């Protein structure tokens, strides 16, 4: 009888482990969050607050360096290793041709530190655009733009800055969703 019980326990444990065998297990699962938990401090027509932040490529990325050269789509994301974020930036990788056609670079910003962002973006295959860390002072750039949430993560926000350094599009998406790409591409087309 005992043998049968142990066999049953073993089978149950095996079933449970087999069920958990998803290849994307590295991603931390997040419950539905409050859609927006901050208040934008910038608006269309404002001069974009400048920033210089360290990137995963061991460089310093400065927003104003792009002035007169490229439009910039700043993509704030809440946190590395979370489901929606891991399903957002790889899309901008795929749409590289569209962004280049529109003379635009993307800057990905997260409040995570550089090593975390390095490991996470490497796991996703790397990107053609810089990913920078707004870790210290914690979320200072996110705070300046008004997209720092009360728990220290950032909103899922898109800020489009034209070649004059002026904000032409500011959108805070429900943190649980991904901003639709067509909306972003249309916003970029409008400033051409």
């Amino acid at each position, binding site marked *: 009888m005992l043998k049968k019980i142990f066999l049953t326990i073993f089978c*149950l444990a095996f079933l449970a482990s087999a069920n958990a065998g*998803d290849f994307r297990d590295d991603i931390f699962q997040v419950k539905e969050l409050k859609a927006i938990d901050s208040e934008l401090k910038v608006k269309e027509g404002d001069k974009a607050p400048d920033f210089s932040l360290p990137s995963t490529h061991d460089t310093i990325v400065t927003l104003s360096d792009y002035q007169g050269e490229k439009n910039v789509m700043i993509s704030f994301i809440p946190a590395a290793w979370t489901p929606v974020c891991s399903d957002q930036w790889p899309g901008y990788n*795929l749409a590289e041709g569209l962004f280049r056609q529109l003379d635009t670079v993307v800057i990905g910003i997260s409040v995570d530190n550089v090593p975390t962002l390095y490991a996470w973006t490497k796991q996703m295959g790397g990107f053609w655009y810089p990913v920078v860390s707004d870790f210290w002072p914690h979320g200072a750039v996110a705070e300046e733009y008004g997209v720092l949430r009360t728990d220290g993560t950032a909103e899922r926000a898109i800020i489009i800055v034209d070649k004059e350094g002026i904000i032409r599009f500011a959108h805070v998406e429900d943190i649980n969703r991904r901003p639709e790409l067509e909306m972003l591409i249309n916003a970029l087309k409008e400033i051409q």
Partner: protein
Amino acid sequence: MLKKNALLRIIVMLAMALLIYPATCLSVSIPATGDIFPADDLKTPEGEVYQKYLGLDGSKETFKLRDVKSKLALVQIFSMYCPVCQREAPEVNELYKLISDSNLSDKIKVIGIAPGNSQFEVNVFREQYNIPFPLIPDGDYEWHKIMGEVGTPYFLLVNLESGKILEDNLGPFGTAQEFFDILKRHL
């Protein structure tokens, strides 16, 4: 006597666990081999060439998988945002080519369905990788919920007559030739 009672208690608990386990699975169950493919509506793919490939009436906005004129359908659940799907796209194209080159296009149809992707996003994926088969957006994740919110990529081979899932594959399928050999066994 006490030992017997304790054993009985363990058996009852295990029996309850066994009953509860499938019930919890049901709430998020991902259709897999042996299950019947959900009969829910899918958006008719844009483009006459893709409607013709599937044998669908283009005037209707939606279709059911069983409407596809073929013996088998290989359903690929993917996303343009999924780096694994991006990396695998050339291999899936190669699989489609193997099917075509073997004159099996009438017997195995390939259909991509993209949870959380709009038509625009699906088109970006198509253009980037020159995808030759129909891609269907599931922008609001409605269909994805029916599929147990499965991760991407996920492949299902479906017998269109019985609706039964014959093969499932979560994650990349390896080489196109290996997967093609598996699919061919069901013809």
